[in-house]
């Protein structure tokens, strides 16, 4: 173990436009509200245009480097199955992955240049990763808005965090109250459904 022992490392991954950065921003705010030092960093070259987005959130008594090294993530939040597979080697041996079962094919796959993995979740499991997968999109569709996927994913990891799940929920609801009050209630429900789906 390294000196970053007491720092919690969460890697949130997905595709541009899925809300990965918003999710990690909310996680960071929740951690700050608990008195932690936080660093959050992204590699999102041209995320706007459907590229890979990976966002690192680190919190603890004092955080130095913003980057999570391969093999050091405590939690991997995968907004898309193949992306979770791409990043799963970032997990610690005992780390956990929370994966949205969604498969989003990029044009290079559509064009037949590369195959989409037949069973990305299975591939991750084969690596001995502790993993929970579910269809966040289905829940979002039931609630009537696909943008809820990121709140659902936050709900799903809430019980794996070192602070109360309610803290994270409050941050999300407050954020919506401030920006889009009409959506606060639905997001609270999405959070609860995500939380339930993780058990």
């Amino acid at each position, binding site marked *: 173990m*390294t000196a970053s022992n007491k720092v919690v490392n969460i890697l949130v991954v997905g595709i541009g436009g899925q809300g990965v950065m918003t999710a990690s921003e909310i996680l960071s705010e929740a951690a700050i509200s608990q008195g932690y030092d936080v660093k959050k960093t992204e590699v999102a070259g*041209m995320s706007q245009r459907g590229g890979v987005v990976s966002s690192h959130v680190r919190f603890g008594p004092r955080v*130095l480097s*913003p980057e999570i090294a391969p093999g050091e993530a405590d939690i991997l939040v995968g907004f898309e199955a193949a992306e979770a597979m791409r990043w799963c080697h970032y997990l610690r041996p005992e780390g956990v992955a929370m994966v949205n079962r969604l498969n989003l094919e*990029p044009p290079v*796959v559509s064009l037949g240049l590369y195959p989409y993995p037949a069973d*990305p979740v299975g591939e991750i499991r084969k690596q001995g990763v502790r993993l929970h997968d579910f269809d966040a999109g289905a829940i979002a569709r039931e609630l009537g808005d696909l943008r809820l996927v990121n709140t659902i994913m936050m709900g799903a990891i809430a019980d794996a965090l070192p602070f109360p799940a309610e803290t994270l929920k409050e941050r999300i609801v407050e954020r919506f109250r401030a920006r889009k009050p009409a959506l606060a209630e639905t997001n609270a429900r999405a959070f609860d459904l995500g939380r339930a789906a993780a058990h």
Partner: protein
Amino acid sequence: MNPNLLQPPAAGSRLLMSGNEAVARAVWDAGTRVAAAYPGTPATEILEYLSLYPDLYAEWSVNEKVSLEVAIGASLAGARGFCAMKHVGLNVAADALMTQTLAGVVGGLVIAVADDVGFSSSQNEQDSRYWGRFAHLPVLEPADSQEAYEMTRAAFALSEQYNTPVLLRLTTRVCHVKCLVSVGERQVVRAADQFTKDPGRWVMVPANAKRHVPEMLARDKALAAAVETSPLNRLEAGSNPRLGFVTSGPAYMHVREAFPDAPVLKLGFSHPVPLGLVRQLADQVEALVVVEETEPLMETEIKAAGIAAHGKDILPAAGELPPHILRRGLAALLGQQPVAADVGQRPALEVFPRPPTMCVACPHLGVYYTLSQLRNVNISGDIGCYTLGAGHPWNALDTCISMGASMGIALGLDKGRGPGDENKKVVAVIGDSTFLHMGMQGLLDIAYNRGNVTVLLLDNRAVGMTGGQENPGSGRDIYGQPAPRVDFAKLVEALGIDKERIHMVDPYQLPVLFKTLREETKRPGPSVIITDRPCVLIDHYQKQQPYEVDEAACTGCGNCVEVGCPAIHVTRRDKAIKPSGKEVELAFVKIETAACTGCDLCVQTCAPKAIRHAVPTFPVSIN
């Protein structure tokens, strides 16, 4: 007046801020009057944030050189001036910089330059700290947002104290990392109430400029003394004297994380290198290691001073230096085996790449579909979203080097053509913002020297690549307020292109675009085809009713796939034998109706008319 102005959080607030946000706040807190920039990742957001602050003038400049000149002018007027750019921007601005360093400043003059260490979205990875050496300037290198805030403020003070422009060197890992920042009290500082005419100082003819060289060299000496005692530099004690580190910028955080017990010389004011402090550290430790991103600048200078040090002999000379890379490099020096955590616990799994794509319905799609249908063309390209035309499925862009280069390169391809290219046409593709940044001069050169080049000027009313910022072609300023809009047709005509060879074409009208392009490439001499539909990410864009594919009617010809719209997905592939006996590949498709904005491009490529309007069934959003 800008309606979006921010109520800046009070002094003393602790805020979660990116490095870019922190720099912006500090520029405002430093009482800066004028701030200018041309967009460029990772620095773009600095000016976006600054445009939200009151009592400060912010602008999008047409290029980085102009942004620096605007900041210089503000400094001469007695105000604090600031400009921000990505690393390659300073190459463009360098001409002004190299002489302004002789003239000095009145109001503080700070240049933020953001290096894209790790190539997240740039054409090279150059180390801008070289400019500090080349131009005899102090270089400050913050390690995180809090330091970005403090050092930006310190930079203005240093600038005025030492009569010098100051380089604030950022990297992607400072610009885009968020952490908690305590912000201070705003102080409005003005060095002078008016511009003082002083030709000996501001008119850089040889006789005047020459007289400033001794001043600049004296300033070098003063700065070399200042770095030894600057509060931005500190020698941190450590309990393990085996290794001592000299480090700057975000690499400091990585060093502290990887080697918590080591003595560290942390340099925030990193040029000139404080050799006295380095010697002090060297005397305490068994081996000295210089950790810097990316080139061995401090290392070379330290070694030249006769101090033994390791650096790029054991560490990568490109890319970032995160803790696991450092530990791996240092393990060899210490004769240790790298630990599992530093080489990863599990293997990385093989997954398809996910390169960025053009947006659904992007007006560039029509252009590249058309270019991909043309035979015998060499296509000189430029930088912007349209660079993606080099990729699948279009493969219709053959060069890309630097902003505006498509023009000159096209002319050179024409003038230098050999027998193998005798029948080839030369086409150049350039975006509106890139054209205004550095392309106009190249087109003037094509016109003046009568090149056989067909220029496609893609006017999408935005700087698409960096997020849709305003520019002189968009008709709005940084505050979103109406501004004079360049008339591209008139501009191009004024540069010397024959009026009859200038065409405005709707890029969604494939037959018209194809015909115009084919006819123009057949004729000798220069011509310009301007496409005139907006980027889909800006508010000028209007969505139309979406489409779907009638599966029964789709013959699998795959033509629509060649458009390259990300809303079109192949559902099934097959092979068929034509009556001629030739085997053809079939690709059956569906359209993701929720994402389709009804631009009509794919419809025009579908012979059996299998693409038809869809009735939306479900409230979905397109992000």
